[in-house]
Structure formats: C-alpha cells, structure tokens
C-alpha cells in the first residue's frame, strides 16, 4: 500500500509541557494547568507536533480532533485533516484524549501519532491498549515512557517511514508515569502502567543507541534460555515486571503479569501479581531468588515499577540471590550511567550498590556498576 492510502490519527495534548518551564514538574490536572498558565507557561506541543508533521508526505490522510487537539497543527503542517469529535477550546481534558484514541481505533487509522508527555501516553494506553499502533512526539515535561521517539523530527521520520511501508517491525514500549502529587512533594515514584505497540526502527528510537543485533527478541530469548536452564527445584523465583522477564516465563510456558510481580517454583506459577505482604508470606522459610530487569532508558533495577519487591523482600532473599537480566541494548541505552536502586531503604540500597553481574544472553554476562 502506498503512503497516500494510509490514515494517520493525530492527537495533540494542548496542555502537555505546560508545567515544565515554570517548575511544576508536570502538567496533570486542571488546577496545575491554570497555575502554569498564570505563571506565564506556553504550551510547546503545537509546534512540536507541526515539526513532526512536516516530515510526513502530504498525501497521507490525517484524522484529528478539532482545534488545538490536532486540527490546527495538521493545517499548519500542510494537511487538510478529517476532523472528528468535539472539544471545549481552552478546557480540554484527559477524557478528550481517551475519547479521541477510541474513536481513531474505531476508524481504523494505521498509526496514531500523539504529542504529549507521560500522562498523555497513559491516556492513550488506557483507551486503546495494544489494539492500536501508536507513536509519541515528545512534548511533555516528563518523558519516561519509551513510546516516545527521540525528538519530534524522529517521530515524524519514523511515522513517515512506517506509512511508506518501510518499517515492518513493531515493539512493545513502556508506558511509564510518575505520581505527580508525590513528585511535587519531592518524592519520586515511577510506575509502569503498561505497553503500547510502536513501530520500531533502530535509528529513530534513542538515536542508534537502542540496537538490536540479532534483534531484541532474539536477545530476550537467549536470556530466557540461560535463566531457565539454571532454575533449580526447591527454590522460589520472584519475577519482576517487564518484557525481558516475560520471555523467561514464556519459555516456561507460563503467563506473566506484564506490569506485576509473579512467583514461580518448580516450573509452575505459584502466585500472580503479588503485593509485598503476599510476597513476604510466600517467602517465609523458603530459599528464593529475585529476577528483575532494569527499566529501559532509566536503569532502575529496584524502586521503579516493582515496588512490591520491597526492602524487606530483598533483605530476606539476599543480594547474592538477586538475578539481573537485561538485553545489551537496554544497558547501552544508559550511555554509561550506572544502574540505579531506590528501594526507599538506604541500607538496602547500599547493600545493592557496587558491581552486579547482568545476564545478557546465553552464557553471557556483563559486570556493571550499580550506584
């Protein structure tokens, strides 16, 4: 199919990024947005969306919500968009983003391009999950989610490549967000909300740093083969969230709670999506190992997205029984920065710091620093 026959959905979160420049650490919530505007904040999401759209062939059909939620940017980018839905100008809400995403799924757009931040990614994820291919144009204050391209230009290029049929691979990318209320009080607490399906081409996501030879999936399969071959009877395995750890349970023929913690023993699922107290209950008097993977781009091994594995859990299991797995791609995306732990307990963090062996493939490990 030619690009001309493709449909591109466009959602611009007009308030994304408002909070950043005025030091509000985010823009979620109408109160904060008003506060930001009062402080003289200007949204950058329009210009960022236009910047991406300029990379896309004019023959592509764009489906957009009215005005500031997409139609304006589409016109400025040289398109005559098909406009759907309705909004209250100047008073758009996350509900509008969710409605727009659902509507675009229904209309069968080939790709949903959205400009925003982590909050926007969450809204899109909540609305369409993995049913719609999506790609983020980074415009928010917080960009922890891997669904965003490295820059607006990269987002446009990747979308254009995809629409031209030149990108055939997809990947599941993390939708992450920080609890903004907590963050404004100085507490950083990030959560993994889920995964969106995004088109994948090495050069557009995090420059060329996210590699994959012979491919991220093959790398995960090799890691899984290594870990599974070394599982021992009599041990309890606490398996943290992530696509890399999911490869391990898949190899065992088990389902994995993608954003939760599961417990496995003797090749069988003992408990799914457990919380801290359930974990401590299960661990009582048992030999156990923890299998975790760092969060891509950030490098957190503990304390982000896997808080269920609490300091008490880690202490009970012991540092020597923590197994860290990661594709080399994820390690290199850290750009030499160390892996991080933030369990909330200084002593446990210190215990975990130093050098750790990370399983990167079958019989392949790297020794990497944990700060």
């Amino acid at each position: 199919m030619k690009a001309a026959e493709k449909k591109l959905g466009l959602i611009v979160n007009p308030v994304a990024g408002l909070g950043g420049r005025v030091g509000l650490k985010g823009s979620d919530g109408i109160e904060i947005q008003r506060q930001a505007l009062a402080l003289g904040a200007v949204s950058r999401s329009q210009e960022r969306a236009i910047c991406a759209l300029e990379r896309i062939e004019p023959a592509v059909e764009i489906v957009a919500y009215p005005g500031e939620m997409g139609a304006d940017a589409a016109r400025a980018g040289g398109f005559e968009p098909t406009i759907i839905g309705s909004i209250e100008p100047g008073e758009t809400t996350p509900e509008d983003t969710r409605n727009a995403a659902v509507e675009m799924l229904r209309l069968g757009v080939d790709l949903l391009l959205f400009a925003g931040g982590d909050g926007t990614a969450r809204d899109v994820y909540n609305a369409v999950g993995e049913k719609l291919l999506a790609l983020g144009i980074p415009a928010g204050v917080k960009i922890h989610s891997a669904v965003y391209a490295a820059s607006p230009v990269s987002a446009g290029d990747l979308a254009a490549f995809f629409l031209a049929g030149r990108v055939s691979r997809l990947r599941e990318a993390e939708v992450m967000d920080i609890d903004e209320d907590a963050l404004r009080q100085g507490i950083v607490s990030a959560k993994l909300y889920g995964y969106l399906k995004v088109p994948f081409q090495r050069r557009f996501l995090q420059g060329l740093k996210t590699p994959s030879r012979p491919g991220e999936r093959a790398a995960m399969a090799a890691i899984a083969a290594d870990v599974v071959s070394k599982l021992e009877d009599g041990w309890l395995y606490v398996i943290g969230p992530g696509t890399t750890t999911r490869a391990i349970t898949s190899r065992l023929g088990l389902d994995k709670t993608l954003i939760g913690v599961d417990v496995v023993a003797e090749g069988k699922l003992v408990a799914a999506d457990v919380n801290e107290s359930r974990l401590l209950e299960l661990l009582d008097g048992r030999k156990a190992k923890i299998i975790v993977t760092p969060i891509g781009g950030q490098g957190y091994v503990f304390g982000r997205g896997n808080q269920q594995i609490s300091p008490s859990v880690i202490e009970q299991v012991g540092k020597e029984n923590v197994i860290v797995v990661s594709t080399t791609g994820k390690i290199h995306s850290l750009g030499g920065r160390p892996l991080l732990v933030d369990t909330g307990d200084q002593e446990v963090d210190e215990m975990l710091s130093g050098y750790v062996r990370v399983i990167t493939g079958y019989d392949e490990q790297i020794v990497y620093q944990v700060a």
Partner: protein
Amino acid sequence: MAQQDISQHRFTDGKPNLRRFHQAKWDEPIIFELSCEGQRGVLVPEVEGEIRKEVGDALATLPESMRRNQPPRLPELAQPQVVRHYMRLSQENLGADLNVEIGQGTCTMKYSPKINDQLAAHPKLAELHPLQDEETVQGILEIMYRFEQMLKEISGMDRFSLQPAAGSAAIYANVSMMRAYHESRGQAAQRDEIITTIFSHPSNAACAQTAGFKVITLYPDEDGYPDLEALKAAISERTAGLMITNPEDTGIFNPRIEEFVRVVHEAGGLCAYDQANANGVLGITRAREAGFDLCHFNLHKTFSSPHGCGGPGAGASGVTEELARFLPLPTVECDGERYYLDYDRPDSVGKLRPFYGYAPVILRAYAWVMSLGAEGLREAAEIAVLNNNYLLKKMREIPGVSAPYAKGKRRIEQVRYSWEELAQETGVCSEEIGVRAADFGVHYWTSHHPFVVPEPVTLEPTESFSRDDLDEYVAIMAHVAEEARTDPELVKSAPHNSTIHTIDHAPLDDPSQWAMTWRAYLKKVGRR
C-alpha cells in the same frame, strides 16, 4: 585560449578538491540464475586409451556410500560469461586498493605490497600441494619456521602456531589451550568463565562462547579505561582466563594492564593478549613483558597480507613454554638439517583445520617483515601512531566531532570518534555520514554493534597513508558534516552514486529472514 593550469581540476584555493566517485551499476543476476544446462567453461578431454587401460576406471575405487546420487547443482556457464559476471561484480565495489581505506578502524587496512602478491602467485608456491611429502616442501617449511622465530622476537613468546586460518581461529586456539591447561590441572569443570572487555576485539567473547565458556564482559570506567574494580568483582575461582585487547578498539592504551594480568594470575587464570591489530606497538611493547601467557596476531592486519575478501587471512597463536605442549597440530620443527611437521604431540588441542597453515598468506607476511627489518617494523608502528594522532587533531577541528574518553591523552593506532553533537544538532547520524562518504569514494565504518560510543566512527590510518591522503579523508568528513547542517536531506538520502542505494536493516536483525546460500534462499522463497 588562455593557458590552462593542469592542476586546477585538483585544487581550489590551494586545497585539494574532493574526489567524486560514481560506482558502476550492473543489473547483474546471481550466477546461479545465469546457469544454462549443458554449458561448460572447460571441456575436459577424454582420457587417452593407453592411460585408461593402465589405470582403469578411477572412480570405481570410490566406495559406493561416498558417491552422490545426483550431480551437484552448480551453475553451468561458458568461460566468457563467467569472466563478464565477475568483472561486473568487481566494478560494483569500493575495494581496499581503490580508496583511502582508513575508515575501517580495527581492521588495519594497510597497503599490501604488490611484490608480495607476485611472490605468492609464483608457481613455486602456487603449485604446492598440502599433501606433498615433507621432503619436497622444505622451502615453505623453512619460511614458516623462520617466520615463527620472528614472531617470537616480536612478542617475546616462546612458541607459535601458524595453523589458524584467521584471527578468530587463532583466538579459538588460544581459548582451547586455556581449557587444555586447566584440564591438565584437573580444574576444567570448575573454571568455566572467560573475562573480556566491551572494547576488546569481539572475537574474544565469540570464540570463548564457541569453545563452551561463559563470557563475562567488563564495561569501561568513566575515562574509558577497562575498569579494574569491575575485574575484581568478576574474578573468582571460576575464572579460566582473561582475553583482552590493548590498546582497545578506542585506541586507548590500558595503563593498568600489568595490574589486570596480576589479578587474573593470582586467581589462577591465564591471560591472552589479543593482538589482532598490533600495528601501534610493533617493536615497542611485547606481550611477554606485560605478563601474558598467550597472544595472537592477524597476519592479514598488522603483517600486510590482504584481508578476507582479497584472499584468505591467517592467524598466529603464541604461547609461553609452559603452554607450548598444547599448541595446535602440527608444529613446524627443524632438526638442524631438515624441516618437518610434528604431529606427535599428545597434549595438543589438535587440528584447527586441515594441513599446516595458509602458505601464501604466511609468505606475504614473511616477505613484509623481511623487507622492513626490525627497525622498519618499529618505524611502521611509529608512523601509524603519528598518522593517527595527526588525524585525531584534524578530526577534532570539525565542529560536531568528539573523541570520547581519555581526555588529554594521545591515542595509539586508531580512534573511535563520536558524531553525537552533530547528530543532536542536525538529526544526521553516523551511519548516514558514512553512506554519504561513499559518494566521495571512501569507505567508512561506524563500529561494532551495540554502539557504546554514541554515533561512532572508527578511523585507523596505519602507516600506509600519506598526509595528503589523510587530509583528503578529513576534508570529506568536514564537507559531509557541513552538508548535514546546510542540506541534511542530501546526506540522509545518500548514497547517490552507488550500485545499491540503501538496504533495509530490519532483515539483518532477523535470523528467520537470512539465507546464507542460494539453496537456502530458494527454500525460503518457496521455489524448491
């Protein structure tokens, strides 16, 4: 008509113009597709009656089980078609003799003197058969024996094997000897880990894995040096050995190398020095003095033999006396009068390949060393280092280029540069710059995946290239960087003058789409 300055087409304002290159483009099929049943390149004459009577049916001596049921499906073509086919392919190339080949860092693409090719093509060598009786190949055995003595002097090691077919084969020999050593001490089962570094020659990790070891890779410290603390964290009673390159692929010499060797030895491991490219240290440092137990050279890198595509490569594995009994079979020995092959070595790791070494490659390397002499080797290394540091200075003058790590230190024979700054400014990445460089007739290589240095390019100018050559290469880099700022699309849409435009990288990441042979390809596309 005014008199024309004949140099004008080469220079503008005293600076050399960039060379423009346009590659030939033939819509040339795969040779199998050209096949036409019954065509032949050579008609082999019938055996004369007298000979047939004497010998009988030679094929009858072949056991039934070894005979093919069907003839092999080889392409059938007449000679001129074959010649045309390969001439066309040869034009769709940017070969080592065609360009200022400094853009393939880590490969030591030095010039291979043509006289050495002539020696290798001489019938006295070319017509040798590896199954000939030792008495009839005393000449090449003598050359191998003498070349081993030279390598011993260059490295300080006690014995060498020239049997490895390439660098990786030599590394494989070395890791096999490490295992044999631990086996001889009853520790092979316990010592199953090999430690290497991320900026070492990647063949170390690959060969260690192929040999059945677990591989532990160390990451550099903040300054780009191999991290001694990481080594200490990795070392244990399971360590079989360390396999490390120095200088690493970043061109940075590891100032703590003796400490690395000491830590590994104290833990009972062995140390192998990967000298695939020893071009910056010939005659200056030796593996032995740094305490290594094993080392290896690539004769097709440092020792000027052409690389793989120009003919076979060859590796040389060197060891201390203590490990000599494990060397691959056979070794070349001399009893004072005659040279012979020694297969009677019960502790040997065995053969890596048939016969005793790639004679033409070894001959070229021998000739190269003989033409330079000991002082010449050192001079070659010094010029290579000088060239590299000149290039480093020139490259750094290009806005957007950096040379990460080891600030303020000189590099040895190569540098891994980064275009990260330019990429952030223009959106043009290293790979695209490299492809655009092909429009100016030069080769350019980023670096091994995964990219630890962002937007990398690895340049290694060796001693073969003149200052003009280096200036030309830098001028191309500066020109393309400027284009990235003024006309990024021009760079991103490159190459404009090559046989093949761009290739989709996705299948390279996907083994299910690979086909290594024509037959495998036909199977994948469902034609057979």
